[in-house]
């Protein structure tokens, strides 16, 4: 029996991991700002952040293609700086996935920060903890459940994406051919054996990840739930 091509699997994991790490870095300050700001533009930012939830992936993919292609200002700048195109490349996929999965990172984190509220941060400040110190030693541990949910959802959602990837990345083995694209191609070429293998693998993986989240949610000493006691 031929070994199935595991290239798409590795590419998918690499994409999901990179995307999740980037989302943790940019999603945290964004979620923090949304949780505590009184700014009037808050609603606008919230709406923009939530757009990927409601837009068909093809719409997002289409606009990304328009803005990232080498003849556009952004895509052109990228070509001049790096010598490679953003579209139909792994980096382009990362950019697309970050935007596509943004709400899955920001919304759980925002909810967690809002549940914590300002009180523990103020208490930390009166204990001589700087804002950054208070964030890492008080807010983050208290938001642990929010972080777990946000990380897992962003990761899993990136693995499950199809439309945006197809529009922005196409189907280039080793560069942009992720699992969902590979499955699509196997089905198109009536290679059901490999389609089964990849699909079953993805199904099992997704189930195990979600199971892990729900089990952890039960076991975690949920600081958020304790706030009101």
């Amino acid at each position, binding site marked *: 029996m031929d070994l199935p091509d595991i290239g798409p699997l590795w590419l998918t994991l690499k994409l999901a991991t990179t995307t999740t790490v980037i989302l943790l870095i940019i999603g945290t300050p964004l979620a923090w700002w949304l949780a505590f700001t009184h700014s009037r533009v808050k609603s606008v930012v919230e709406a923009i952040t939530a757009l990927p939830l409601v837009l068909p992936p093809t719409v997002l993919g289409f606009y990304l293609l328009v803005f990232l292609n080498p003849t556009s200002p952004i895509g052109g700048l990228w070509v001049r700086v790096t010598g490679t195109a953003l579209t139909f490349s792994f980096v382009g996929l990362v950019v697309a996935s970050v935007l596509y999965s943004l709400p899955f990172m920001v919304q759980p984190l925002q909810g967690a920060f809002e549940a914590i509220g300002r009180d523990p941060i*103020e208490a*930390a400040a*009166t*204990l001589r903890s700087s*804002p950054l110190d*208070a964030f890492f030693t008080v807010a983050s541990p208290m938001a642990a459940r929010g972080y777990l949910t946000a990380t897992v959802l962003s990761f899993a959602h990136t693995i499950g994406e199809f439309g945006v990837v197809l529009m922005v990345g196409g189907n280039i083995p080793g560069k942009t051919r992720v699992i969902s694209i590979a499955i699509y191609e196997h089905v198109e070429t009536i290679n059901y054996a490999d389609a089964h293998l990849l699909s079953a693998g993805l199904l099992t993986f997704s189930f195990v990840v979600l199971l892990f989240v729900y089990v952890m949610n039960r076991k975690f000493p949920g*600081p958020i739930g304790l706030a009101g006691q």
Partner: protein
Amino acid sequence: MTALSLAVRISLGSFELEVAEKLPLEGITALFGPSGCGKSTLLRIIAGLERKSQGRIVFGDEIWQTDDGTDFVPAHRRGVGYVFQDARLFPHLTVAGNLAYAEKRSRSVMSPIDLDGVVTALDLGPLLTRRPSSLSGGERQRVAIGRTLLTRPRLLLMDEPLAALDLKRKAEILPYVERLTEAFDVPVIYVTHAIEEVVRLAGHMIVLASGRKVADGSVEEVLERLDVRDATGRFEAGVVLTARVTGHDPEYRLTLLDHHGQTIVMPAADIAKGSDLRLRIRARDVVLATQRPEGISVRNILTGTICEIVQEPETAFAEILVDVGDARLRARLTRMAVAELALEVGKPVYALIKSVTFDRRALPAPPTAPALIRPG
């Protein structure tokens, strides 16, 4: 002694607060007033938790904020401790973890405050391995006080630390609070709306009403002034006077006190002869008579002279101040009684005192009291 001088204002929605005050930071200063008068807001401004506040705050020779808002020392650099009404312990840490959090961030090494001392003084030993969620309200407040002390604050701000507790828990915490200043040598600003706590704990007080300062001064002075009556609430109005213990009556289990040659008796308390006690006498517990009454159960009858009468035309009542030596008793009578007894300034009267409460600070530590850690 460091002084704290402030001239601050803030507007939060429809609420406006504007207070100018110079506080000698010595012992416990009470910030007193009815709910919603702005006392907690003022405390938060002092702590640096209200960034929207305007005005000047100077602590000793350090400027914490200036009128033009260019200098604003953030809360974590002011070196003050804050005990919140709701304790605000960190739920993800144990009690020991909460204490360590504070101690790790304390910068001053030359301080009488150390972990062992705080744990002993506040009886935190048995709680150390527990999570905040498993503590009672009183225990939580004790941990919060200990945690704040361990930052070695230069000034301790306490925002109604007892308000969320029932009477029994209050009684459990009060002894700890009243020993804080001497045990750890840190001045305290204590927010409360309970006059009993003011009398028991504070030497100096500021009265706030609707975001404005109504009175300030020593607790004795402020409480005998009629103009703070509304802020203190009518029924709780009263005065504080100092009396010396002259002896005990073992048969009737009474303690005898002397106030300017007049005797006051109260249920026996274990206080050494010669010590001074602060007595609080509420206006509603004082009855006036124009002749010495006979055949009456009240034992405490002081003679004095009326020095002020304030009529309250909207109500049935009037308040009368009676000079009894160095203090002035306050009595709350009906206006009808004032008229029918022809009470007027200068008239000698007998003041019958139905009930006396005293300030426990003059007492030696009861057997159950926590061990004290002395500075140095």
